[in-house]
């Protein structure tokens, strides 16, 4: 009788232990889908703009108007061709 009880317990254990363990985490679809949305949202949102000021970015080279010559009609014009004032010197070299 005692042997029969042990055998019954063993058989019960075999059927119970054959069950897969209960899931301890959320199904894969539940974790994957929201993650994809978050990533997409992060990608579409405007990225924060960081302006890095350096010497090279600020110091654009100034035009050297004293070495800038434009040909306007028959004349060689020294300086900024868009200057607000045009000075004409009428001269002989002698």
């Amino acid at each position, binding site marked *: 009788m005692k042997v029969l009880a042990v055998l019954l317990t063993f058989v019960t254990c075999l059927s119970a232990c054959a069950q897969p363990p209960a899931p301890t985490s959320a199904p894969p679809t539940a974790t994957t889908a929201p993650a994809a949305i978050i990533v997409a949202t992060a990608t579409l949102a405007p990225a924060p703009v960081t302006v890095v000021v350096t010497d090279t970015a600020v110091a654009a080279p100034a035009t050297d108007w004293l070495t800038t010559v434009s040909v306007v009609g028959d004349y060689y*014009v020294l300086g900024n061709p868009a200057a607000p004032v045009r000075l004409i010197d009428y001269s002989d070299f002698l």
Partner: protein
Amino acid sequence: MLRVEPELKAAYVANGTVNLTFSHVIDHGDASRLAHHAAECAGSQQPLAFWQMHDLLFARQAQLWNPTPDLLLGWAEELGLDRQAMSSCLTDPTIAAKIERIDQARRAVGVRLRPSFALNDTLIEGALPYTGFVQRLAELGVN
């Protein structure tokens, strides 16, 4: 030449508020023509060289009363210009015609005296000190 040109260049041309044009005036016959021709030929090689030759011609004005092509060819070489091209240019009739055209243009606008200059469309005859230019330019809104 405007006596105050160096000051005007430093104060106004350098900062881009004024640009400078030189207009040929032939007052001394062939000597004048050859000097103007040299400036034009320098400019035909490099536009900036027009102004470099302009400065040289005024700086050595005393040598221009009896100029020779060889003298001017030497000056062109000093500026790093091509002597052969300069030599050909000095006899180029199209350059001679251009100089005559510019001289005629100044007569057409009424320039009779030297020195004369124009600030935009205002013709001013006679010398003007630097302070006079400063005042005229201020009237045009340039400081």
